[in-house]
Structures are given as C-alpha cells and as structure tokens.
C-alpha cells in the first residue's frame, strides 16, 4: 500500500469524528500557538529595547535635579532646580572620560506655523546635546556658535513637527511661532522613532539654550534662570561608565556644597541600564511562558494518545476486518501512526497561525516591531509532529498487535 493511500485512509478516519479530532488537537494548538506567540513577543520586545538603546545614544548618563526637601517631606524629583549650565560645563571641563556634558531645559509649548498649530516639547540645548544623543540633522544645519552666543531665534525640529506643521514642505527657513515668539527653522533632525517612555522622540523642537532661557522658557522656572531639566553626559568609553558616574556625583556634591552624608540634590541615571533591565524582565517572562507552552504541548500529546487508544478499541472490528482482507501489521501501524501525526501537525499549523496572529496583535498594541520567527514556527510544528508520532506509537502498536481472529469477534 502506498504512503498516499495510508494518508487518505487516516485523513478519512479523522474526518469521521470531526469534533473529537478538533478537541483532541486543542492542546497542541494552544501549545504551538503559545510558543510561536511568545517567541515572537520576546523577540519583538528585545528588538524594541535594542532600538531604544540605539536611539538613546551610546554611553549616556543623565543627571537630574533632586527633589526639594521641604520640612522633611520630599517633593517630586525635579521640583528643585539645582542643576546649572555651569555644572554641565564643569563636568565636561574637569572629568577626563566625559566626551560631552549637555544641558537641556524644556517645556511643552504651543507652536503655530501659518494656519496650523501643535503642542510639543520645546527644548533649549546646545549642539553638544545632539552629540550625546548621536543625533544628526537630516536636512538644513545645526546652530552656529554665533546663534548660540546671541540667543538667536532659530530652531531645529523633529520629523513629526515637519509633518504636523509644514504640510509636506521641508520646513527649512520656515517661520515657527513658539508661544508668541517667531523662530526660523534651520534644520530637520533624523527620525528616531519611539522613545523609552513610548512617546515619539521626533515630536520635538530644539532651540539654542540661550534663546530658550531669554525668550521662551526662562521666566516660567521661577527660582533661577540658570536651572536645567537635566544634563546629558556622553562617556567616551563604556568601561568608564560607573567610574564617571562616581566622579560626577563627587564633583556635583562639591559644587553644591553638600557635606558628609547629607543626601544629594540630584540623581544620576543610566537609562540604558533601565532599558536593559526591562528587556531582561520581558525575556524572562517570555521564556517562562514558553516553558508553560511546552508543557501544554506534552499534555496535547497525551490527549492525542488517549484518543488514539480509545479509537483503536472502538475500531477493533475494523482492524480485524482490514487484517482479514489482507492488511499487514505495518499497514495497520502506519494507519494509526499517520492519524496521530496528522492530528499533531494540523494542530501545529493551526496553533502557529493563531500564535502568529496573536503576536501581530500584541506587537501592534504595544507598538513593537512584528518579528515572527519562521524558525519558531518550523520548530514548534516539528516538535508537535514528533509529539504526535511518539504519543501515537503506542496506540498504533496496540492496533497492529491485535489478533485478527479476536479483533473480528470483538463486539
């Protein structure tokens, strides 16, 4: 008997009990689906973290102002504007492994260009910030040192701003009103995509720090015109990151005259570490779920074995009859083995399809790249097939071992 014939007979036997076959493969469907989905989600999350770390700029440290200590009750971080441009300059000047230390001052402000408006983050920077973030202008130019020195009303905008305000134009040399102050756009930045907080990093307007302080942001900070949101430090060597972190701490404590064990009025963060930790947590969660899914695959295999054993018993007379008319034992064995393998493989394919669909849905919801690994699908289906065959072996063996005389008399 040809293999095709065995396949036909097996497929037919499965079609007879459609509902039972469908229920039997459910375990495999869930198992393969979960494996494919979780591998894809894990890969997507990993890719997202890597992408965020990449767009962050390598070897980046952030120094944030600390919380104001108001009569023992500590307020929100950043409520006490303690960092100054001078702090940034001194970090750069005095610490050897610091490539740049870029101050940044920002606020959400309304923008108007022609008849369109938009609200976004307006940040005062000097070009060092773009160095720290490894961010290039896609078109136009950076601020000139003259513009920085005089606080010129010039702006570099992110890609989202061009889309929202300049309606298809390049945006270069257009006039942009920040609050009520007209700025001229000199450059448009490269696209960076979503940032760590899930907000588009391209939805931003950069102006010279001097212009920001004197013309649009300075007054709102209140306490001091020198106050900064944070300082971005680019360290020249990854190995020196923790060393620089300690040195910055010591330097700033000295500059802020904090003695002994009094708490610092600033915080130093390594944003890549935070992202790494988040990525690691996601990977761990995904691998736990994959382990659970693998258990489900084995349970699915047991359910196939169970149903195959029931089927062999139910079809004892059929087996006897087939043997009487000339079926050899290996033909009976193949028939049942193929039935089990078909169950598992169909379950695997359905599971892979559902898992991939779920992965796409999750990635879409979470804003991750969709990374459906063909290897995960192939491996999960192959594993399902192996499970179907191994759990089908015993029932098939039982069927093939039947004595035709006993089987024919079986009621």
């Amino acid at each position, binding site marked *: 008997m040809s293999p095709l014939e065995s396949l036909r007979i097996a497929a037919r036997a499965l079609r007879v009990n459609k509902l039972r076959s469908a229920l039997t493969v459910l375990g495999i469907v869930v198992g393969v689906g979960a494996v494919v989905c979780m591998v894809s989600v894990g890969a997507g999350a990993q890719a997202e973290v890597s992408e965020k770390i990449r767009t962050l700029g390598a070897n980046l440290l952030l120094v944030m102002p600390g919380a104001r200590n108001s009569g023992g009750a500590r307020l929100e971080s950043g409520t006490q504007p303690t960092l100054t441009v001078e702090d940034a300059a001194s970090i750069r000047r005095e610490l050897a492994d610091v490539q740049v230390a870029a101050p940044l001052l920002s606020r959400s402000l309304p923008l108007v260009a022609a008849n369109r408006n938009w609200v976004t983050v307006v940040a005062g920077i000097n070009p060092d910030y773009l160095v720290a973030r490894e961010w290039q202008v896609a078109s136009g130019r950076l601020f000139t040192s003259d513009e920085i020195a005089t606080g010129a009303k010039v702006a570099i905008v992110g890609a989202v701003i061009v889309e929202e305000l300049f309606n298809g134009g390049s945006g270069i040399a257009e006039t942009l009103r920040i609050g009520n102050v007209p700025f001229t756009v000199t450059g448009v930045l490269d696209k960076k995509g979503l940032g760590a907080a899930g907000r588009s990093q391209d939805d931003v307007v950069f102006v010279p720090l001097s212009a920001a302080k004197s013309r649009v942001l300075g007054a709102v900070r209140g306490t001091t015109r020198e106050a900064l949101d944070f300082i971005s430090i680019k360290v020249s060597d990854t190995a020196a990151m923790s060393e620089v972190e300690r040195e910055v701490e010591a330097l700033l404590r000295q500059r802020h005259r904090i003695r002994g064990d009094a708490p610092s009025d600033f915080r130093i963060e390594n944003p890549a570490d935070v992202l790494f930790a988040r990525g690691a947590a996601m990977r761990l969660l995904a691998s736990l779920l994959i382990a659970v899914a693998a258990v489900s695959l084995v349970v699915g295999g047991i359910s196939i074995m169970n149903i195959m054993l029931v089927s062999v018993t139910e079809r004892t007379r059929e087996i006897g009859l087939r043997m*009487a008319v*000339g079926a050899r034992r290996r033909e009976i064995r193949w028939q049942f083995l193929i039935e089990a393998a078909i169950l598992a493989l169909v379950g695997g394919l359905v599971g892979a399809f559902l898992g991939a669909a779920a992965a796409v849905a999750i990635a879409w919801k979470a804003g991750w790249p969709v990374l459906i690994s063909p290897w995960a699908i192939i491996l999960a289906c192959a594993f399902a097939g192996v499970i179907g065959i191994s759990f089908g072996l015993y029932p098939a063996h039982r069927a093939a071992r039947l004595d035709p005389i006993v089987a024919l008399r079986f009621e």
Partner: protein
Amino acid sequence: MQPLVRTVGISKSYPSGGSIVRAVSNVSLTIERGEFVAVRGRSGSGKSTLMNLLGLLDRPDSGTYAFNGREVAKLSEDGRATVRSHDIGFIFQQPALLPRATALENVELPLIYAGISPSRRRRTAKDALDCVGLADRGHHWPNQLSGGEQQRVVIARATVNDPALILADEPTGSLDSATGNEILSLFEALHRDGRTIIVVTHAAEVANRARRLFTLHDGQIVEDGSASSDNLRPAALAMGPLP
C-alpha cells in the same frame, strides 16, 4: 495439478478457563479447485477454528497445510496477510462492513491492500457489485442497506480480488430464510462460475446446497459425505488419510 487445499493432521488448541481446549484435532482434508464444500458441526465443534486455519487467519500448532501448492502452516504473519489479500475471500456471519465507508469502498478494501491502483480498483469493485446485483447501490452507506444487501456487498468484497478460495462462516446466520436462500443461490452461482467455496455452518439447509460435506465433531472430521450425491465428483473422493 495440485489440490487447492491439502491439510495433513492439522491441530489447534486454545487455553480456555485454565484448561486447554483442542479446537481442531488432527484434521486432514483435500479440496480441489472448483469444489463447493460445506463443513458442518454444532457450535463448539471447532468449525470456526478450522475456518480460521484454512483461511490463514491462524496458524496450526501441528500438521502441514499446502495452499495452492505452497506450504503455509509455518508462514509469518505478514506472509499470511499477503496470501489472504490475493487468494482468499471471507464472508462472515455478521455482515462485516466498515460503517463509515460506502458499499463500493467496502468492496475496494482488499484491492487497497493488494496494491491495485485507484482507478482499476474502482472499476473492479463496480464489476463485483454488479455481479451480486447491487450495481446501483455503490454509493449507499451500509446502514442504508438491508441485511441481505449488506451480505451481498460482503460477497462482492470476498470475490473482488478473484480469490482462489472463498470461505464463508455461517453466511446466512443473521438473515431470514428467504434472504438466506437468495444468498445461497448466489453461492451456487459462484460455484457454477468455477469458484472454490468452503462454507462453515451448523444449518442443514446450508450444508445441503454444497456438493460435498464434512462434519466436524469435537475438532475431528467424523464424516465425509456428499450432500447431493448426483453431484458427487470423483475429485471429491481425494480425501486425506483419516486418523
């Protein structure tokens, strides 16, 4: 030419409730091609066991069995399956059809295991159904057919691979007498076509249709006579030595 079936002293015992029952004991018989033979006996006389042995469903404990000139008593499981698929057609007491296959597919079954191609299979099976008068019922399911029709499908299946030997075990056992008679007429028609038929039965009216009669008693052949002596042929006398 060698006889189709020649057994010499075949025996078969079964363990049954702690003791060993000798179901077939030292049976020697010879059946020529084209004979219509009945093996008669009460229930428990060992006739089903004898049929299983002659049909190569089972292997004798001792003795020799030459089928179609070939020694088959020591043949392996698969070897016997191959002989069954090519040379033996079975008809059982209960019309044994696969319930989830059409009449035509049931008739095709032996041809599948004999390795016949699908198109030739279909053609041959249709011819066989035609011969038993069910040409138009090929696509019916077994439960849409009457008992007599089902048994005729079984006969079509037993003859579809043009076997050397047709074995029937109580072929009318589950049928009313009128339907049973139809089936027996079909057997006679097969016999007229030159087929070799062995019918195992306890019913005299079945045995009487055969041209030659064995009676089994406690696993031993105790009588060999002609059911209708006018049809007795010289070949029928070619009996193996009695114990």
